[in-house]
């Protein structure tokens, strides 16, 4: 009776791939977090436009939102008229190149839009865009 002697090696868990995975995940989250844009959008129904131009997402802009009842938002956060005045006044003093994006609900009375555009232009901010929904 032959005896087979098995040379059994001790079972070992290789942690290198695990570390790799962890690092990959870490790098992924790091990178994705770094590139995540600040959400400046507000919950409104945008007006439709057939002639709107698709533009690349802006990196440096100020979003002013106006809801249908005239409530103002600055970069996605609720704001007030006095605050918008002060903010745009400071912005205008630092240079007029900054883009202002107007996110206006389609039900918003037009005089609210005129008012904000007037403030922007008076403060020297001429680069104003209006966000619309592509009809197509």
């Amino acid at each position, binding site marked *: 009776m032959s005896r087979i002697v098995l040379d059994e090696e001790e079972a070992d868990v290789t942690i290198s791939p695990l570390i790799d995975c962890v690092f990959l995940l870490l790098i992924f989250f790091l990178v994705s977090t770094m590139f995540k844009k600040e959400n400046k959008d507000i919950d409104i129904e945008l007006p439709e436009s057939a002639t709107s131009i698709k533009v690349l997402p802006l990196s440096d802009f100020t979003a002013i939102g106006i809801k249908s009842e005239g409530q103002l938002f600055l970069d996605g956060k609720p704001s*007030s*008229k*006095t605050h918008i*005045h002060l903010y745009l*006044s400071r912005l205008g003093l630092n240079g007029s190149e900054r883009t202002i994006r107007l996110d206006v609900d389609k039900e918003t009375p037009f*005089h609210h839009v*005129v008012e904000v555009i*007037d403030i922007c232009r*008076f403060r020297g901010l001429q680069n104003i865009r209006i966000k619309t929904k592509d009809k197509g």
Partner: protein
Amino acid sequence: MFHIAFLFIIHNASLFSFVVIHPDKEENPVKSKKKTGTINRTDRMKNKTTIPQKEAIKLQESLRRKHIGDMRANIAEMIQIKRAMEKIKLDSLKKIKNRKKKSYLIRELQPYEKALTTVLSEYSKISRKETTLFNKEFQIELDFDSSLAQQSYDGIKNALNNLEIFLDKIRADYDNRELVESFSNEWIKKDSTFFTPIHERFLDFKDREGFRKFQRQAKDRVFEKIADFKDYKKKIDTNMMQMNNVDTSMKRFEEAPDVSSETLKAGPEGLYDISRSLENYIGKVYTDVRAAELAIIENISFDEAFARLRTNRSERPDWGEKLHTTKKAETLEDIDKYSQTLTEAVNKTDKMRIRTLNMLSRITDMSMNFLSLTLKEGKKNSTLSLEKAFAIERHRGEGSKNNPVKSSQPGAGIGNIKQDSGEARGISLDRFTYNQDSYGMSGGRKMAFSLPKEELFHINEQFINANVLPGRKFLSESIRSGWIYIDTWYVIGPWENSGAIDYKNLHPPEQEIDFDMEYKDGKKDKDGLHRALKWRFMQSSSVRIIVPDEAEESTYYLYTDIYFERDTEMVTAFASDDAARVWITYPSGRKLLVWEDNLRSSWKMNEIIKKILFRKGYNQILVRLENGPTYCAFSMIFCPTEKPKP
């Protein structure tokens, strides 16, 4: 020690409360009411108490005397207004009589003026090296120096200026035939308009003949008109028609109320009636003057114009009956009531005075402030009267070749009027002169920037309305020039003012500007509830800003800011209906009251003209607008005093 101090304090406190609760018995309760402004319980109880008859009569008489004095002062001013209005009416009627001459002359001069303008414009093209001439049959090769045409151009320009002066003279005094005749003759003699340019380079000019041909054509065109004009005298005589409607309106003078010194000795009830009849009469004269103006403009008869105006002027009710009280005062309450009735009577006569002053202001195109001060000064100083003030205005309006000041507009306030004759002094502050050729406001052609300081200044309302632009930013590269109005405002109101102009009654906008605030103490609405007030954004398409939610007897605030690239001095014209206060807050935070109007005046673009220095940066403007009856409006226009430096 402590006890002593404590007792001392208690003692003083009790003494103080005694004084408060038990005022001096000798003190006049009418006076004490005036001090506090309200009648407390103690006063009410006291007012019910009877007073000795002798004392009551004495009190009644002193009140009567005081209020009669105020009423007489108002009536005296209204009498002056009446005289001035009557004179204006006579002048207007005289104009109707001779208007045919005027319309004929103006009509005759129009093509002449047009021809000169055309020629001037074509010459201007030559100097600008444009190749298209009004006669397209030939083209001048403009390879010569543009200064060659300058002499002819300047000549025509002078001719046109002379013609405009002449036209103004005719408009002012079109009955003067000699003036017209001598002018047309002299004009031809003196005119060197169409001389060929004398310049050595012109000899080398290729199309010299072509240019001369052009000149000849221009000359013929203008001279043809002059020849027509020379025959004007014959044409006037054949065409002139006398208007026979003057007598009807003259009769209306018979309705003038009796304001002799005897009648003015009447009591408050009599004075109220005189004041009322004066107001009605001045109202009628005002309508007559308006009808005369309309008749001249529309070339219709006076009666027809009068009927067209459809004036249904409601007469003031005979409230004076209240003053006819024979009841003798028995209690202090009676005295108090009597005092209130008299005060009301004085206020009513004051309202009548303001109303008539407003009418005079509209007719004379002079601000109410100016007129009011003239009347007041006229009383003190016999050398200054309304008539003199009008004469001065007319004199300025005429203009002359030697005097570049064509006309002027009154400002307001107290200061000195700079006069050519040097005879009248003491009325106006912040008045400016401008050169007819430099600003072009009254001539209305071009805007330059050479406004001399501290001289008389005139703004032509029609010209400004046609040319004024909205704006709030003043930059060196701005292409805008001339008059600018502020079109963008934040407005809040109405607050109750009960018809009184009381700037002491402050509202939140005077403390801070917060666009997000909502104030719950607004004027009561129809349901008797206080309105909630919020700042509202508004843009006006015209100079005259009409506040939203317009209400009578209310206070409004308007706010805006304007930007200046550098410290800039601006000629600023404010106007309000009715009263207003204007503050400017500099970028440094310094707040200045730049204008205050205390009169219930209707809106007139040139109510006051001031020079105001604006600082570099954002200058905040806050306006407090006090509305009385009917409309509520405000305007602020400005023009730089000098050309912006590059």
